[in-house]
């Protein structure tokens, strides 16, 4: 009787401990392994949801294109959706839609990202579809020609009818002058249609090369089963060429101030575009620059809105864009107003604000609010499967580790307003700026 009694107590304790553990460990630490062919796999299980994200991060982008067909990789953003040995064109996209999920393929300068968010019971199908995309894409001359024409027409139309697009392209080319990001991602518009189809087809090998692939599976899945499936589907052989590991060098701030005016007919608004060269993702400065970006333009805490529209009632429309490159980035702020006088005042106020950021520290209350918001945004992103997976893959690619959450939060907590002041002095100087004013005639 006594033994039963003690056994019962022991079991109750075990139950309690197990229960407490399972409740606390909805997500476990990510793990990584390599397949024999060199493909890297990262598994990041989260148990309290019923969805899974299959993300393929290719360490291949437009920067890897041969000079004569620079921009050809961008064609793969659409070519990846064409048919394969066993799939009809767009079937991959429709499969995800039919199952209530979401998917996307994006080719950038430094990398290319393809992901599917699907219900957990469809993970094997999602993996199979990705293996089809990597192994047996059917790229005919006809499809390539269609894509070349589509990209040419779309961008030609935008260049000639959309002043915002045209000015943004010009500003980016100047702020990234003499870097690999200088030409637009689609390459030289006049050259696109004359790209050699055979060379374009050869680029497919960049996306197939297992040494240049990081696969991230995050969400709910059975680790043992998934490992088996991945091994079965992705252990393809690839012609062994020595893959040279790409070396990245953070690009320093610019040394030339550029200011240009365009006077154009038939536009409704005057605008002024400020581009500031921002830090590389490899640098510690990248995180600190986020404080400046949030402080100036994030709609939730934007100082520019507060100064221009609330304090001085200038009614300025403020938009911003932040590039997503590895070696160098740019913060592009567009201010527009139908009244030229208001725009000129806004420019004066922005210059003054940038100057004051270089001279004085951000106030303690603003700094605390910024820190909280950046942390909240980071934590929110970590709960979104696709963003979590992208961060994991990118961090593994650049720094070779998987503990992003801990590292990021530690660095964020250590940041002080003096760090921000240092970054302001480094990046907000006049020589690191390109300004384009677009006035109506």
């Amino acid at each position: 009787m006594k033994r039963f009694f003690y056994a019962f107590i022991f079991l109750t304790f075990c139950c309690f401990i197990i229960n407490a553990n399972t409740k606390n460990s909805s997500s476990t630490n990510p793990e990584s392994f390599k397949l024999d062919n060199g493909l890297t796999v990262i598994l990041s299980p989260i148990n309290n949801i019923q969805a899974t994200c299959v993300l393929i991060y290719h360490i291949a982008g437009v920067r890897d294109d041969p000079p004569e067909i620079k921009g050809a990789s961008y064609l793969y953003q659409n070519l990846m959706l064409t048919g394969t040995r066993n799939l009809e064109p767009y079937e991959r996209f429709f499969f995800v839609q039919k199952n209530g999920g979401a998917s996307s393929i994006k080719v950038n300068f430094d990398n290319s990202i393809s992901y599917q968010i699907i219900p957990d019971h469809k993970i094997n199908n999602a993996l199979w579809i990705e293996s089809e995309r990597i192994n047996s894409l059917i790229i005919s001359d006809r499809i390539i020609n269609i894509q070349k024409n589509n990209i040419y027409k779309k961008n030609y139309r935008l260049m000639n009818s959309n002043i915002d697009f045209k000015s943004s392209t010009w500003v980016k080319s100047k702020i990234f002058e003499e870097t690999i990001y200088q030409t637009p991602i689609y390459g030289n518009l006049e050259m696109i249609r004359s790209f050699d189809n055979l060379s374009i087809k050869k680029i497919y090998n960049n996306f197939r090369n297992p040494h240049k692939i990081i696969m991230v599976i995050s969400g709910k899945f059975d680790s043992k089963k998934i490992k088996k499936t991945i091994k079965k589907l992705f252990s393809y052989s690839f012609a062994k060429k020595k893959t040279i590991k790409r070396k990245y060098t953070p690009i320093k701030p610019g040394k030339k101030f550029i200011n240009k005016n365009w006077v154009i007919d038939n536009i409704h608004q005057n605008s002024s575009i400020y581009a500031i060269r921002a830090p590389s993702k490899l640098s510690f400065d990248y995180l600190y620059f986020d404080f400046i970006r949030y402080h100036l333009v994030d709609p939730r805490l934007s100082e520019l809105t507060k100064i221009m529209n609330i304090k001085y009632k200038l009614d300025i429309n403020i938009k911003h864009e932040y590039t997503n490159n590895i070696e160098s980035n740019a913060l592009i702020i567009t201010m527009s107003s139908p009244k030229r006088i208001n725009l000129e005042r806004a420019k004066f106020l922005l210059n003054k604000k940038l100057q004051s950021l270089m001279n004085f520290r951000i106030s303690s209350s603003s700094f605390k609010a910024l820190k909280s918001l950046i942390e909240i945004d980071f934590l929110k992103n970590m709960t979104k499967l696709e963003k979590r997976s992208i961060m994991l893959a990118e961090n593994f690619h650049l720094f070779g580790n998987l503990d992003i959450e801990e590292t990021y939060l530690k660095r964020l907590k250590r940041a002080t307003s003096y760090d921000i002041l240092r970054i302001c002095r480094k990046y907000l100087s006049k020589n690191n700026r390109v300004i384009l004013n677009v006035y109506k005639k």
Partner: protein
Amino acid sequence: MSTKNNKFKRSTIILVAFLSFFFCLKADQNIVNLTSSKGLKIKIIKDPSSNFVHAEILIFYKKKIKNPAILYLTIENIFNKYVNRSESRILSNLKKLGNDFEIINRPDFIKIKINFLPDKIALFVNFLKSLYSYRAFTLEKFNRSVSNFWEYFFNNKNWEKKIVFQLAYNKLFSGHLMGNTIITKKLLKQTYLPQLQRFYNNTYKLNNSLLILKGNLDPYMISELLEEKFKSYKKEKKLLYKEKKLQLNRQKKIIILDINKNLLPVVYRFKVIPSLKSKDHITYLIINNILFGFPNGKIFRNSIYFGIRNLKISSEIINHKDISIICNTIRLNFKDIEKLIFLEESEKRKLKIMKIGRNDYLNALNYFYGKLKVDSEKFDNEVQIETDKSLYNLKNNYFKKIPVKFNNIIHYVSLNELNQTISNSITFNNTHKNFTSELIIIVGNAKQILRYFTVLKPEKIKFIAK
């Protein structure tokens, strides 16, 4: 001595066993429901893995307010940073929390969503205090909010969609609180500051609100903090309003909302369906998916035979206490709008005669099953489920719960039930008791849209903001 020791040992063991059991049971309770002494209903979803807190505050509009500008301007006066030039206590508290908030104004309630870090829970309680004891209505702010009303309205990214929804609710539920949505220049002129203050005093009350929190939180600590903060708050009797029964305009209408712009038109197709409480709710969702699903739906699949190209369809469901509304948003070319309306009618007729096929039925179920699972990745998903449960007094929240197996979902709605509903409701005959309202709003340049209308004669409404 030894017996005393044994007794002591045994009683300790029994106590430990009891505590273990208690904690085992408690650990299973993920959701804690509380009501504060001042009448605030609180739901806390415990999520030990979460490093931030997601909070939603719902304040219900119960009394019928004839002038919708009062509801809108109250929010503007409290939360809009352009109206509040100098920072009010509410805005300063929000800024300290990180300023990651969103206000959703619905005809029947206001929802405030906030994200903040767990160490700022005391600040959050301060924010709540400033929300329920707001005394900063001033004539200067009020005048600013009225005179710049449209300017602020257009600062919203989705202002166009907001106008469409206001118009839709007005047409679907005219004569009811839910239909009081359209704000005009005349209504703004007829609004005065004391009306806002009276409305605030009658509505923004603890016993008229629901607070839902999700995060790594201690419910009892929060409860204590709230009790402490609202100690001096006067407890009021809960006022019971007699709610007018929702009357639907049972008709089918096509309206063009003339917005002078050169972009492609957007067709918003509204359909009122039974509320979440009803089992028919799911039936209608499935039928809608069979028709408007993308890419499985009949309309998308057959659009090519009608010469319609580049069709993009998305659907959303808006739930209310007595009804739900499905809004299908369709983007297409000017010349294809009339064709689309005919295609929809033809597909409905076909469904009625030929019945729903098993494949279409299973595809729709598969979509919903997948969507429920995929939605589980959203950090506010559980909060939405709990909100719906509280708002609509749901015992069986059919499609919000994820069925363990696909087979379970089939038990909710059978193919026969689906076909039965179709034969009862999808007709042109709006006299049938099961007929629910439908409304099509086409947004875009009316001149260009009407150029391609040859048979149908839609009503045209010009949008003049200022």
